[in-house]
């Protein structure tokens, strides 16, 4: 039962453009959402988060948007850089933490 879904396994964008990574969830009891970034041969690292009482959180080039009515969140990276190429995991916190399957972002120079 995948409560957190990332339906796009991969995304390719040009350097300087916007990257939009999407995540859907089914459990309305989730109260906190996080994005993690994972490079090959490394563990995931925390990127940005948002509480369910907010609809937007921004940190530099990274912005997370939350649409509670649609049970959807997205991560915007602008401008995208080649160093952003990684796998991005969406996670949702309820009584435990649930992760999506990940989206592999490739930013082309």
């Amino acid at each position, binding site marked *: 039962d*995948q409560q*957190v879904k*990332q339906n796009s*396994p991969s995304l390719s964008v040009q350097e300087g453009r916007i990257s939009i990574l999407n995540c859907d969830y089914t459990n309305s009891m989730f*109260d*906190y959402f*996080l994005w*993690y970034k994972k490079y090959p*041969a*490394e*563990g*995931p*690292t*925390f990127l940005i*988060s948002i509480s369910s009482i907010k609809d937007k959180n921004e940190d530099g080039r990274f912005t997370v948007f939350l649409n509670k009515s649609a049970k959807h969140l997205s991560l915007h990276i602008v401008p995208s850089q080649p160093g952003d190429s990684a796998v991005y*995991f969406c996670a949702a*916190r*309820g*009584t*435990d*933490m649930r*992760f*999506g*399957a*990940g989206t592999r972002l490739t930013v082309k120079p």
Partner: protein
Amino acid sequence: DVKVTQSSRYLVKRTGEKVFLECVQDMDHENMFWYRQDPGLGLRLIYFSYDVKMKEKGDIPEGYSVSREKKERFSLILESASTNQTSMYLCASSPRTGLTYNEQFFGPGTRLTVL
């Protein structure tokens, strides 16, 4: 800087062997977790622990056990390794705040291959 270390980056074992994966964190975190990461499935929680000698089953505990004798160390045990346990294993830790879990800090992972 929080550091989570895992004893091996790569491990190759034979079917039926007993396998120990060790994880150590240096930030005095109460919570520790073991996940496995498989393509298309993301991170799935095997076991977690919120205190010394305490353990809770995650989503896929079958075929695994854990041990937490010291706060900083959380071990994952495969009693009799099988080929379907070939995977990337990730350990994580987090401080405990209230009843739920904060941002988790991950180790680099152990890629286990069972032949």
